[in-house]
């Protein structure tokens, strides 16, 4: 290929010896351009550009030919594939010939982090960041932080009480000087880019002035609306219209749920206001919006579980005593509606026979969920165990597909359930659950005893329903411009090497909003994300890739070929295009006004470049000349 001074190959170019090969070549042959034919640039572009700059070459004179992900891995081994590889390299050789040396751009950083979601992930991330001395804004959509973990009874594999370990953390968050907590709030808008985001947060009106409220709880005892199913108790208990989700809520001050409040529904009531000793109740206040300058975002919005009504074969949730795992947690929880006693939702009787069904929805492409929810095997074992402790004469059966107990002390935990607690494990799928004279009949097949049909009579059935993405996850992703998978779980930048980063620089992930995760994993990810944030916020300034648009300049009397129609201003998604007056040095009189791109704001999408009629805007790193050369070279023989 014309202009290629030196070519070599090596099995692992990204390894140390490989990197040294490149460095040597640059030095020996005085190269002013390097093309690495290897894996995707999304993988190692950074690595190789760093190598080049270490060898004294401008890093932006290095291009990566994607010969693995987009050639050798997707095509059969044949001449055509080899030819394609050659073409790809030829294209980038021609491009790199035209690449210009570029200097990275430095921009200031807003030293404040935004954490979205106050579950254990959000709590952990907030505390870690805050303890490093950085400001954190924690936004929680419900009236209290704590998330799903605060609903759990005991946690596997140690069986320590969930709230006992969580509550102190919740309190710590509330009291931490570096953490600003906004409960009953949502992210409205996220603008800007890494280091310099601008977040608009909607503070839903609580109808309660927290500065006056003492959290005495009198209002809740007086509220006439008492039959509202409690979200916290997964509908197994009730709450009032003015409420805190749970007694351990943080902040432990109530909000009015407008959907169910008599005043907001009918316009009359105001009982809570009458009784409130501090006059904290204020109706009809509008939501407030605040904007915050922040440098990084951690998304920890968590997950949800399928409700029983999803399952036709198990009665669409019409059987009161067919419940979800999360509901069982509430029954088993000392702070739950039954104060920790396992009682049937239908009649409050203690079930003598109980059946647990694993993989409800999960690993079932027919139901649209091909993935494994990961936590069910463990919590089902835990549920069975808790039941046996609480109802020693009870009989518990678990239907499972296979048991996935990968994790420290997990396998031992399941064994204990089976061997010491006499939980009856049946390997097989449950075809149907139906009611027959007051009993639930669970019909399944035991696949170990070559699919021998089994029929078990049960007082209560617990479905380990699949973990799913929160509804609204898609909207949130679009607000923040991060990508998500077909199940609307948020996508990480790289499945292995960048698990807590998103494709959008400065936005990080932790916990079950990314994929089903158990508590240890979630906490680990949260701390990981926190470190990413801290390392970002600890930098004096942020060094950004100079792949941005520029307006050309040329000799007088033109000064620039830009004619200043400024139609590019309406195109730019970042308002990065400003007006610049070119003035006569002597008279100071304006000669012409042209477009000017603010390098701090430009994100390098290049939409203005292909829109500009006179080709007066070009984008560094993807310039017209470079792209033209690459396309031509792919086809030129």
């Amino acid at each position: 290929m014309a202009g290629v001074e030196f070519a070599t190959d090596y099995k692992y170019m990204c390894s140390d010896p490989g990197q040294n090969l490149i460095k040597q070549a640059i030095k020996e042959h005085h190269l002013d351009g390097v093309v690495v034919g290897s894996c995707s640039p999304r993988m190692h572009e950074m690595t190789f550009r760093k190598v080049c700059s270490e060898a004294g070459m401008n890093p932006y004179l290095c291009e990566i030919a994607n010969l693995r992900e987009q050639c050798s891995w997707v095509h059969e081994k044949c001449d055509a594939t080899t030819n394609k590889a050659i073409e790809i390299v030829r294209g980038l050789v021609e491009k790199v010939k035209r690449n210009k040396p570029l200097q990275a751009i430095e921009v200031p950083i807003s030293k404040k982090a935004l954490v979205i979601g106050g579950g254990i992930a959000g709590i952990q991330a907030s505390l870690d960041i805050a303890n490093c001395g950085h400001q954190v804004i924690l936004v929680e959509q419900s009236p209290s932080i704590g998330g799903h973990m605060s609903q759990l009874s005991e946690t596997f594999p140690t069986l320590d009480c969930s709230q006992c370990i969580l509550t102190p953390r919740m309190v710590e968050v509330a009291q931490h000087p570096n953490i600003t907590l906004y409960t009953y709030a949502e992210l409205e808008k996220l603008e800007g880019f890494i280091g310099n985001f601008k977040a608009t947060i909607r503070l839903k009106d609580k109808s309660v002035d927290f500065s006056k409220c003492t959290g005495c709880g009198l209002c809740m005892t007086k509220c006439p609306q008492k039959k509202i199913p409690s979200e916290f108790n997964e509908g197994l208990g009730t709450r009032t219209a003015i409420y805190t989700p749970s007694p351990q809520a943080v902040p432990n001050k109530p909000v009015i749920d407008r959907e169910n409040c008599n005043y907001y529904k009918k316009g009359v009531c105001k009982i809570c206001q009458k009784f409130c000793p501090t006059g904290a109740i204020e109706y009809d206040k509008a939501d407030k919006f605040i904007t915050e300058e922040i440098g990084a975002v951690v998304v920890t919005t968590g997950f949800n579980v399928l409700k029983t009504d999803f399952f036709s074969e198990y009665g669409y949730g019409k059987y009161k005593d067919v419940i979800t795992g999360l509901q069982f947690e509430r029954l088993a929880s000392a702070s739950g509606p039954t104060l920790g006693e396992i009682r049937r939702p239908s009649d409050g009787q203690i079930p003598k026979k109980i059946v647990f069904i694993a993989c409800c929805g999960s690993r079932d492409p027919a139901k649209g969920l091909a993935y494994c929810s990961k936590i069910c095997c463990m919590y089902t074992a835990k549920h069975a165990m808790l039941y046996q402790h609480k109802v020693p004469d009870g009989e518990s059966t678990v239907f499972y597909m296979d048991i996935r107990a990968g994790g420290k002390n997990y396998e031992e935990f399941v064994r204990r359930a089976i061997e010491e607690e006499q939980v009856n494990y049946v390997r097989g799928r449950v075809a149907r659950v139906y009611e027959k004279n007051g009993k639930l009949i669970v019909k399944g097949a035991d696949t170990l005893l070559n699919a021998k049909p089994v029929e078990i009579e049960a007082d209560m059935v617990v479905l380990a329903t699949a973990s799913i993405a929160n509804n609204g996850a898609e909207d949130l992703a679009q607000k923040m411009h991060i990508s998500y998978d077909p199940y609307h779980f948020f996508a990480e930048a790289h499945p292995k090497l960048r698990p807590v980063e998103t494709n959008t620089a400065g936005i990080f992930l932790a916990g079950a909003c990314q994929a089903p995760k158990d508590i240890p994993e979630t906490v680990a990810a949260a701390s990981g994300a926190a470190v990413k944030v801290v390392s970002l916020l600890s930098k004096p300034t942020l060094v950004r890739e100079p792949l941005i648009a520029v307006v050309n300049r040329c000799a007088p009397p033109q000064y620039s070929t830009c004619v200043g129609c400024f139609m590019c201003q309406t195109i730019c998604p970042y308002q990065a295009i400003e007006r610049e007056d070119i003035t006569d040095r002597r008279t100071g009189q304006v000669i012409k006004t042209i477009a000017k791109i603010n390098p701090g704001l430009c994100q390098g999408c290049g939409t203005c470049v292909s829109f500009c009629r006179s080709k007066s805007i070009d984008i560094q790193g993807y310039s017209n000349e470079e792209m033209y050369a690459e396309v031509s070279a792919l086809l030129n023989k």
Partner: protein
Amino acid sequence: MEKLIIKLQDINTWLDQIIEKVPRVIAPIKYGQKAEFALIKNATDVHYDSQTTISSVKSAAFPSTETLFAYAKNGPDTKLYNVAEENFVNTVIWRARPCDAIAFKPMTKIFNSDYQDELYNKRYEKITLVTFACNKADEFCFCTSTGGGPGSIENSDAMVTVIDKEKALVEVFTEKGQQLIDLAKELFEKADESIDKDAVLAKIPQKFTKEQIHDHIQNAFKSSIWKAQSERCLGCGACAYVCPVCTCFDIQEDSHGNQGRRIRCWDSCGFQLYTQHTSGYNPRPNQAARWRQRILHKFLYMPDRLNIYGCTGCGRCSRACPVDMNIVEHLTSIANSIHE
């Protein structure tokens, strides 16, 4: 020189003979309401009853786009290749007008003024011009003011003049012309001297003389008339591209990877970019300067330096101009303007 007579109905027979023998015959064909030169395959294609064609026929010798040479890079060394001889074929330009024929004289001079332009010469020497005397003209025609005329025989190889409904006078001036006659000797007979050619020619009043223009413009470089006349000029290249004498060209590259061609294509002094320096400086900063250049080049510099005239009075520029920059009108006003 020989004077012959041909019956009008035989003219097509003669032309078909020519078309049969000559690889490239160019003649005016019908083009919308107008006429335009094109390759013809049948005598009947020719459009006789028309005004001057939109474009001149200069492209027969000076194509709008032509290859100068080709090159191929092979490692360190580059090879150059010439345009093949087969591209230069015998050509007859049929039903040229006197103004078309005359135009090749200044063109040839320009392409040989210092450097001998091989490509132009090779094309030109293969051309035989069969001119038809004009029996009608429109208000844009002013050949009589530029030293030509509806019956001018200058630079033609043969000239046909339709005398009446039956016959036409055929004057043969050159060997090339004679060869065309020889293709169909039987169609011709000797013409007697009595035939009055001038009687049938179009009447084109003379508006000014070359000398008048020359006198008036030689000291008019700073005159305000250029701005006044060019105010409405849009600065396109239409006038230059249809002009039979304009020879300005640009050199371009057509390269594909390691091989390519060097191209010559038409250019126009009317374009702002034509004189734009890389530094940004433009010696002809406005349309007035460019219009002045056009006029001075044709009517002052060419006569003074090459002893040729840059205008044949065909009037094509005026017909082509989107804003009716009527050159006769402008030249007349120059001729009548006081010396500045």
